[in-house]
């Protein structure tokens, strides 16, 4: 369309330019106001002392220094880092392994693929607030469904959300329940593996386990990598579920104090907006670093 030469081509170019600007203007203006200005502001405010009421006062690196090193002012910051790291470490593998098994089995069966896909995705589309409310009740130590089920098996279930060491594994279990995204993406990956690879390996006498280990899993590496990266990014930002489960006290001994919950409770709610901004910037940088590290860890090429 670009290079059509016609007598009116100058007119048309001008009209296209006008149309192009007019069509993109609302979106660009919105991006400027709600993305670019806030991005600049986040950085600026992180160097200030600011309560959103009185004007911000320049504070240099003080926010960063206090958050990172002053355990009197921010006693729970490193706790929230540990909680979030542990959560990512447990929840991402939990949902990936569950999602892969689901996808592999769905790919195996002939009938009911659409049904299984739909059911396993339901937990993903359910509101975080509802997920938390439902699981709080499922995990109820006395009357909940889970401990009752364990009772039948002769196991005495723990007080899932009331024991500090059990809280994060309990959250990872919820993440495994919400494995629908991983299931769906793995399924797409499985469908993309050409059948000829399997046929060739059958001729060579490979069994199903060998095919899984030598063909399926290696070829799914890019898919897995994508899911790990997006999964970790999401896990580092976990908020809704812990906020609805634990509210302001963040669980027994603050064992459910995720990074963003800490940011919300000790920055935002306290009116320490400068500090909250600094925590946002730190999180953003962490996400960038973790993502970059993941890219470096994965070999550039994969056999296939």
């Amino acid at each position: 369309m670009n290079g059509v030469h016609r007598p009116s081509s100058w007119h048309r170019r001008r009209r296209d330019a006008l149309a192009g600007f007019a069509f993109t203007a609302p979106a660009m203006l919105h991006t400027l106001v709600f993305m670019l200005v806030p991005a600049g502001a986040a950085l600026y405010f992180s160097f200030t002392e600011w309560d959103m009421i009185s004007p911000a006062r320049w504070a240099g690196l003080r926010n960063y220094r206090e958050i990172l090193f002053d355990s009197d002012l921010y006693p729970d910051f490193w706790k929230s880092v540990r909680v979030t790291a542990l959560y990512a470490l447990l929840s991402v593998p939990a949902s990936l392994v569950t999602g892969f098994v689901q996808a592999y089995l769905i790919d195996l069966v002939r009938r009911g693929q659409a049904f299984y896909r739909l059911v396993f995705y339901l937990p993903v589309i359910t509101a975080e607030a509802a997920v938390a409310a439902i699981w709080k009740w499922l995990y109820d130590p006395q009357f909940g469904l889970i401990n009752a089920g364990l009772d039948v098996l002769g196991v005495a279930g723990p007080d899932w959300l009331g024991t500090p060491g059990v809280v994060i594994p309990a959250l990872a279990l919820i993440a495994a329940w919400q494995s629908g995204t991983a299931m769906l993406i793995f399924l797409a990956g499985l469908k993309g593996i050409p059948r000829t690879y399997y046929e060739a390996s059958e001729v060579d006498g490979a069994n199903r386990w060998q095919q899984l280990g030598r063909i399926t899993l290696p070829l799914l590496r890019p898919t897995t990598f994508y899911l790990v990266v997006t999964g970790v990014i999401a896990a580092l930002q976990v908020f809704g579920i812990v906020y609805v489960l634990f509210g302001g006290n963040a669980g027994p001994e603050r064992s459910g104090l995720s990074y963003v919950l800490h940011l919300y409770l000790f920055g935002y709610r306290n009116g320490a907006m400068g500090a909250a901004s600094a925590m946002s910037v730190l999180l953003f940088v962490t996400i960038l670093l973790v993502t970059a590290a993941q890219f470096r860890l994965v070999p550039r090429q994969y056999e296939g």
Partner: protein
Amino acid sequence: MTGTLDAAPAVATAPPARIRRRHNAPIALRLTAHVVLIGGVVVALAPFVWMVATSFKRPQDVFTPTPNLLPTDARTGEWAGTFANHLQVLDLGGFATATLNSVIVAVVLIPGKLLLDALAAYAFARIPFPGRDALFLVVLATIMVPGIALLVPKVFVTQELGLGDSLSGVIVPSLVSAFDIFLLRQFFLTLPSELEEAAMIDGAGRLRIFWSLALPLARPALAVVTITSFIFHWNELLWPLVILSDQDEYTLPLALQALAAGRVAQPHLVMAGAVIAVLPVIGIFLVFGRRILDGIQLTGMKS
């Protein structure tokens, strides 16, 4: 928060061979797979069954030593299901107002953002104009920024614009989604240019072509964006939480959060609230689920 969906270029898969793996698994293996999958289905659905059952129970039937998957009388075992919890939550729990607020947000936000995103996407895909690629790069770059990183200044900007503490403050900052622009642009790129050329020869302007030609053709892509946006914004907790403080403005996730935070454990009420909050999304998902899942599978986005 802003990004409806986590960004990702199309999911990397193995070579582009379109050959679907045919089912060569022996019947015994397929049956075993079914057995395991059905077990998985039971586990996946049990929490929902537990939620619905509890929501229909009378308070005195909730706390039973053996959990009861049906709303029956704790003593006699007779049917004792009731809508009383749902009605109480709607009325005293503020869920009627919250439902209305959530509907208002969805009804204003979704068409608005569809229009703005599609306009920009169409221009980025089909109209040659100076600086186009640079502008598109800016949009793409914003996909990479995690929403939470901008939380504080976005609240500030929203309040400065006089939108704080109102449903507009929930709606306006979400009116444009970079990811949806990206997605729709990909779709508009696939349209054959002959159609536009023909329309232009007939004297149609860009707006006319966009409205009567491109948009109708983009219906499948618009449907995916509509449904995923609806699910995302209907469920959204953090942004409304930091913007709204007045209970009368609460959307459903906020109302549910407030209810669940109550000092006294009232699972029957909380579960009734949860049912009300998730019902529309599950309904829509069951109707359009297949199409949404195909769309998500193709683009690799997650809600």
